[in-house]
């Protein structure tokens, strides 16, 4: 298992583009993926950004749609739901 963080695009550009060059873009956010063992260190290193841990994909979507800045720490299941929401099944299948 891995842990994920959804962070504002501008913070990724300013600070984390080299460490996470292939972070997927969703709306104005980037998705970082890191080993579970790194999660504590990452949260410590970037705590001043504000960090929330959310498990409900509905809450995560609301967070993104109102353009909140704190990082969202989440697991893969809600992340898949969020990605599905912003790229619905009828879009770009073929």
């Amino acid at each position: 298992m891995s842990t994920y963080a959804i962070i504002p695009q501008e913070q990724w550009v300013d600070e984390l583009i080299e460490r996470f060059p292939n972070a997927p873009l969703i709306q104005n956010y980037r998705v970082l993926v890191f080993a579970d063992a790194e999660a504590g260190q990452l949260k410590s290193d970037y705590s001043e950004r504000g960090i929330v841990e959310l498990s409900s994909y509905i809450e995560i979507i609301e967070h993104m749609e109102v353009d909140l800045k704190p990082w969202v720490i989440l697991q893969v299941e809600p992340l898949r739901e969020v990605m599905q929401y912003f790229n619905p099944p009828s879009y770009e299948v073929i």
Partner: protein
Amino acid sequence: MRNDLLAQIVIASGGTVTNKDDRNALLSDWLAAVESPQIEVARLDGATQYWQLSEEISVPSGGSIELDLMYDSANQSEIEYVLTSELNSDTSLFFTSKEALRAGSSGYISDVLVDGVSAVTLPYDDTFHTIKCIISGDLASVGILGARFNYTRNSSGVIKSFRVRDDSGLVINEIPLTNKAQGATQLATVGSVNATMINYTGDEWEPLP
């Protein structure tokens, strides 16, 4: 080199540390790991991860692209991409719903065989199945496994190996994706094209079922 660093190398190579205070034992552990690489498979997360080939492979007409692919019976995912070329989905294999496999509308993949039989489904049954994409025409290519070319779709399956054959059935590219010690970049055993897992963390590996 310090023993603790040596122990880390043993673990990173897929080995087991028998005695962290015995340098000779650590060296022996490391040799055992390198000589008998741990065979595991890497589970893609279905969201951010995929295998990027080091260069796009042109597949000749009459040739084939093959994958050994497994989906868990508990997997509920539906719209997913198994493979594509790099710039478009002309050469592509994807799910339109759970278990329902389809190839891109270009016709570059003219038939899909699952375990040797023409099929439009891939069972989600905890078992590896060999998917063989039969190629027609000289425009087919593959550069990405486990995602769409623009990365809006991914795969949450487990790909154990990847092969390309020419029109005589000869394997011209092969990459086993099972060498944990190699980490993110898995090296070819046939041909010179390797595969790198994008957004790799090291947490993806699991024993073969």
